[in-house]
């Protein structure tokens, strides 16, 4: 029998069924809560989102330490050990994340423990104690983690990159030092908590196969959290980059260099954002990207390279990140710049454009696959003050963008003379 070549099946168009806006309710204390109902499993997730990130801090590490101490320090009625035991006993996953703009506290739990989980969340999040001993233990542990992470070229390069593009004096660009871990005191945490863990700074996102009594229970547990007189710090000024655009940080003994290239850019609310997202994807936003093909699949300089487009409250940024074998460092930087210039010069070929379009459309499908993904996608838009129509616009733009527009966007938003290049690695 002859070995027949297999015939490629046709590629069908990718349709996206968008959900409408999530249901919005308002608790008795005016806290907004968005509910995304769906899914097969009897699970619910609640995100408590506070407008309280690095930009709200009066002292470094204030936001992350306040959040971490919720379970490390104990509450008025429960010790830290009791809190952690109860969380595990009911199988509740409790996570805190803090970033430049927000503190997000998430709880995921089985619906059979819905009441218990809400009750516990209220106790942990709104009645914390910030005892000095436990704080000291936590900060000593975190300090060790900090010092270990400074042994990694990836961490060194990333933090210098943000310091460069956002500026040394701005909270967006803040680079931590060991002293920061020893300076923080319980009073800083109490201040931060009473100022920001309040109804006026809080929004709830609830997703999953939510029980019928969800709204009532949300109001019972979180609708009575009291307002405090608001003395929110003023919004910080816009971040400005440092003058020096090329930085090398030596790391003795490293066998790879970490490369970070990028700059500040537009935010999600800008009409060009979606087009820039498409350009970023072609450049380095997925496995089939030009950077991955060139630096990994063609040259073998790296295990992987990606580029990111991120929108924050005060600014957006573009970042290309990779770790390469030390002898390829300069060649890799050159290739990255070449790929940007190529995007500005030559139109994207039809096959590549079709591939990136289909990839991005199906990625959009993944962003709305199930209640948890949907709630997260909604929250991202909400953070930028826009609604779900953003994603419909995105689908249209992905379908309609042309090779000419891509050249135009690449020329408008990538200025290779203005890009910051930060490298951490061994000296030559």
């Amino acid at each position: 029998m002859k070995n027949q070549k297999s015939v490629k099946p046709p590629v069908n168009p990718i349709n996206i069924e968008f959900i409408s806006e999530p249901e919005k309710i308002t608790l008795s204390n005016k806290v907004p809560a968005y509910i995304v109902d769906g899914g097969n499993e009897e699970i619910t997730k609640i995100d408590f989102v506070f407008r309280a990130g690095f930009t709200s801090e009066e002292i470094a590490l204030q936001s992350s330490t306040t959040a971490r101490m919720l379970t490390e320090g104990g509450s008025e009625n429960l010790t830290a050990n009791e809190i952690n035991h109860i969380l595990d006993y009911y199988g509740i996953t409790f996570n805190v994340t803090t970033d430049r703009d927000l503190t997000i506290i998430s709880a995921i739990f089985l619906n059979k423990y819905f009441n218990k989980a809400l009750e516990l969340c209220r106790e942990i999040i709104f009645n914390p104690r910030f005892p000095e001993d436990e704080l000291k233990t936590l900060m000593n542990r975190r300090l060790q983690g900090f010092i270990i992470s400074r042994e990694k070229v990836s961490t060194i390069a990333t933090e210098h990159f943000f310091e460069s593009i956002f500026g040394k004096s701005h909270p967006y660009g803040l680079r931590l030092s060991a002293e920061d871990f020893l300076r923080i005191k319980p009073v800083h945490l109490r201040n931060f908590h009473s100022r920001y863990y309040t109804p006026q700074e809080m929004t709830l996102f609830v997703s999953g196969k939510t029980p019928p009594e969800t709204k009532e229970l949300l109001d019972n547990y979180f609708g009575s959290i009291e307002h405090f007189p608001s003395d929110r710090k003023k919004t910080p000024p816009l971040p400005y980059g440092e003058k020096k655009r090329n930085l090398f940080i030596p790391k003795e003994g490293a066998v790879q260099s970490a490369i970070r290239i990028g700059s500040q850019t537009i935010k999600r609310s800008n009409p060009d954002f979606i087009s820039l997202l498409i350009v970023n994807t072609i450049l380095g936003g997925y496995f089939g990207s030009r950077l991955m093909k060139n630096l990994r699949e063609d040259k073998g300089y790296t295990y992987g390279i990606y580029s990111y487009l991120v929108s924050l409250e005060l600014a957006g940024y573009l970042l290309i990140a990779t770790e390469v074998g030390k002898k390829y460092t300069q060649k890799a930087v050159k290739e990255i710049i070449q790929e940007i210039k190529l995007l500005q010069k030559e139109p994207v070929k039809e096959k590549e454009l079709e591939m990136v379009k289909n990839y991005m459309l199906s990625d959009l499908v993944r962003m709305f696959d199930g209640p948890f993904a949907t709630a997260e996608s909604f929250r991202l838009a909400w953070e930028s003050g826009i609604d779900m129509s953003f994603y419909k616009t995105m689908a249209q733009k992905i379908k309609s963008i042309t090779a000419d527009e891509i050249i135009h966007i690449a020329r408008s938003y990538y200025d290779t003379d203005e890009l910051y290049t930060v490298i951490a690695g061994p000296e030559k």
Partner: protein
Amino acid sequence: MIDFKKCCLNNGLRVIVHEDNSTPLAAVSLVYMVGARNEDPELTGLAHLFEHLMFRGSESVHDFDDQLQLAGGENNAFTNSDITNYHLTIPAVNIETAFWLESDRMKGLNITEESLANQKMVVLEEYRQSYLNQPYGDASLLLRPLAYKVHPYRWPTIGKEEHIKKVTLRDIKDFFHSYYSPNNCIMAVAGNVKADDIFKLADKWFGKIRMRKVNHVSLPEEPPQNTERKLTVKRKVPANALYKAWHVCGRKEPSFFTLDLLTDILTAGESGRLHKILIRGKKLFSSINSYLTGDLDPGLLIIQGRLMNGVSYEKAEAELNNIIEELKNTTVPDEEMEKVKNRFEAEHIMGQVNILGRVLALSQYEVLGDASLINSEIDMYRNVTAEMVKDAAVKYLDRTNCNTLYYKISGTKKL
């Protein structure tokens, strides 16, 4: 409860389908029952390098990733000591593309010298990034040969640099013909699909691939360890670290569930005994974790932690040993047993929220012998008693069965 249907093609390929019409996507997982265990001791890292080459050209497809992305798909793969797993998600309307791509590379590869040379470079950079250029990155590379003396688990999946460099196209071809065959593969599909359609597609795309003789070499059994082993290394790291590994049972044995709960009693969540006593209470460790390697053949139970600055190894190890001795001498209270079981159940359910989680679980449970374990495993954990935990601690956590790695600060780098 995860419903699924299963069939086996004439060529031995097992196909498992789970229907879920609440998603527009489909997920596919293929497990080839080959891993680092099947490697020649002089050519380690071959199974993992081979996984990379599976994306670099097959009989009719030159560019696997491009074709998949063109149909809206996204994929990844991993290799461990026992298996190699390829998985993807794709809009369900384009599921046939996944069958086309996966069947083509099961039929045969078309690898050039250039592709091989390139992927060797990529794997060597992966090795540098994950093991050499990370603080404590080489600890697992040191622990394996300390614990295993004859079994292939003594070498890591990533392999040795000099072995990776000397792999030839001939080695790649031999490896393919020895292990990449329908009768050595399990395929699971989940999502917005119909089981009957999937079985038809499986027959259409994979049905004509011939069964191949799989190279089943019986592996040497690791002899019981009768004396404790210790290794000390010095590295430029900011904190001392401690690693302990005990030989335990294989993944298919009933004791596995008991041992898994035992590690949960020690370090699950933030309420585990080691967190409570050694981190928060006595402030001896900054971080600590315990887990099973979960290998098919007898694997390891590993406890690893970093010591707080100024704490001596003697003190840290003595307090850790006290907690282990307590497991042997006192039964775990009912409430604590209930806690670790509840926690397992919640994690088990949450791990299967999306179809990719379900399809990976289905294919991997089938490797253990039966995909229906996906539904019965919770009961296996529920049936573990405090007495069983105590017995397992006595049986396995013996000093003579233990391997200890002291990963010490060298030079002046101190906190």
